[in-house]
């Protein structure tokens, strides 16, 4: 089943095409959007969430145009920088966003556990480590169990144990029926994804399961496959 469909998407910034006619379809499971920084990953994710001004093409999410009112409570979005209030505690942050989303206070406890920040409920977010802050930001996106999760580099700078735990969490969420779209510029995260989109210079250069992409490029790992695809 296709949950996200992008057709002919163009985004220009300063006269330059940041996204140059993107076409893609995203279904169930964990989809990884991989590419170097500056390749347009964040712009594409913003277009899917509906906060990016676009210059052509269509983006459809769960059957509605991206950014439609009906979608606002069905998409969880984590921006690259942890978008939480640094001067509030974790619980205060989550209670606020829960009230904005109109979900019950019991959700707060559930998402705190999901991101494993149980020991930091009453800590002010600004004094947390980078990894804890990005998990706090992730917790906000999990409130109300949205049908689509759009996560912009949620695992950057995390220690390997935490990264493994977070990828396990993404797969649990996908198993529960959520569409999970995760971006990363670290190629070795490719094998943790069910589906991959490789991106470079505003275009999708490969699309498929990690095994398909490796086989198609005749490479043993995604990094080599990426290089072959670029040089082809």
């Amino acid at each position: 089943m296709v949950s996200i469909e992008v057709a002919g998407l163009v985004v220009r910034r300063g006269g330059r095409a940041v996204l140059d006619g993107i076409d893609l379809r995203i279904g169930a499971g964990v989809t990884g959007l991989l590419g170097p920084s500056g390749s347009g990953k964040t712009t594409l994710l913003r277009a899917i969430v509906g906060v990016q001004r676009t210059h052509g093409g269509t983006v459809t999410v769960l059957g509605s145009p991206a950014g439609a009112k009906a979608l606002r409570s069905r998409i969880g979005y984590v921006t690259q920088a942890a978008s939480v209030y640094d001067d509030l505690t974790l619980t205060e942050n989550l209670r606020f966003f829960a009230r904005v989303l109109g979900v019950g206070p019991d959700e707060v406890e559930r998402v705190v556990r999901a991101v494993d920040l149980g020991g930091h409920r009453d800590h002010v977010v600004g004094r947390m480590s980078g990894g804890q802050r990005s998990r706090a930001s992730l917790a906000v996106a999990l409130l109300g169990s949205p049908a689509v999760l759009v996560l912009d580099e949620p695992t950057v700078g995390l220690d390997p144990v935490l990264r493994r735990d977070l990828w396990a969490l993404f797969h649990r969420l996908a198993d529960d029926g959520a569409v999970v779209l995760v971006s990363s510029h670290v190629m070795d995260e490719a094998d943790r994804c069910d589906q991959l989109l490789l991106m470079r210079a505003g275009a999708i250069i490969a699309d498929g399961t990690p095994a398909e992409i490796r086989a198609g490029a005749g490479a043993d790992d995604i990094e080599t496959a990426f290089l072959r695809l670029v040089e082809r």
Partner: protein
Amino acid sequence: MRPARTLAVAVRVLQQVRRDPRTLAMLVVVPCVLMALLWWMYRDVPGPVSPFDRSGPALLAIFPFVVMFLVTSVTTLRERSSGTLERLLAMPLGRLDLLLGYGLAFGLLAAIQSVVAVAVSVWLLGMHVHSAWLLLLMAVADAVLGTSLGLFVSAFAHTEFQAVQFMPALVVPQILVCGLFVPRAQLPGVLHAISDVLPLSYAVDAMRHLTVGATSTGVAGDLGVVVGYAVALLVLGAATLRRRTP
């Protein structure tokens, strides 16, 4: 528009301010110190009507307006640059809910600030006015006006530095032509017409009506104009808040 969401925003903004006790203390103490300074400046000036009684009320209109303008524009800019604004606008939150929530929280802070400043001016420094209550009401309305203007201009600023620059650009001219330095009736025609469309002129006019020796009949009209401007700027602020950005 959903009242529960407006309230959620207001509570959150107040929680944030509570974490910053120094700002909170300055918000309350600085206007009182400035009023005391004014009283001291005029203490030995002779005359039938004390100049403190004449200018003091006008300054009680200007202080909350300026302070709330600055606090609001910087706070809103912070929300924009931290990414939380983008996150909120991707959520089911009405743009007016957000701005009204801010208005409510800062309006409450402004009320606390004004209560203390008016109390100090009237009871401690002996300022003579018709009605301390009307003075208080006007001071709160002026603070809300400052909040609305701050919310509105923050839409046109990309950095906190730019937001602060709007203070000399948009606030100081209003202070110059509001009647504090030259009575508005004596301004050159063009400047008089300009001062007629600036909200701070009405805020200061109202305070003038409240000084001893004037009539307090025009206060209601001036209050209406100030509140009208505050509401209009909030609605304009909501209109300029874009969910989609480049």
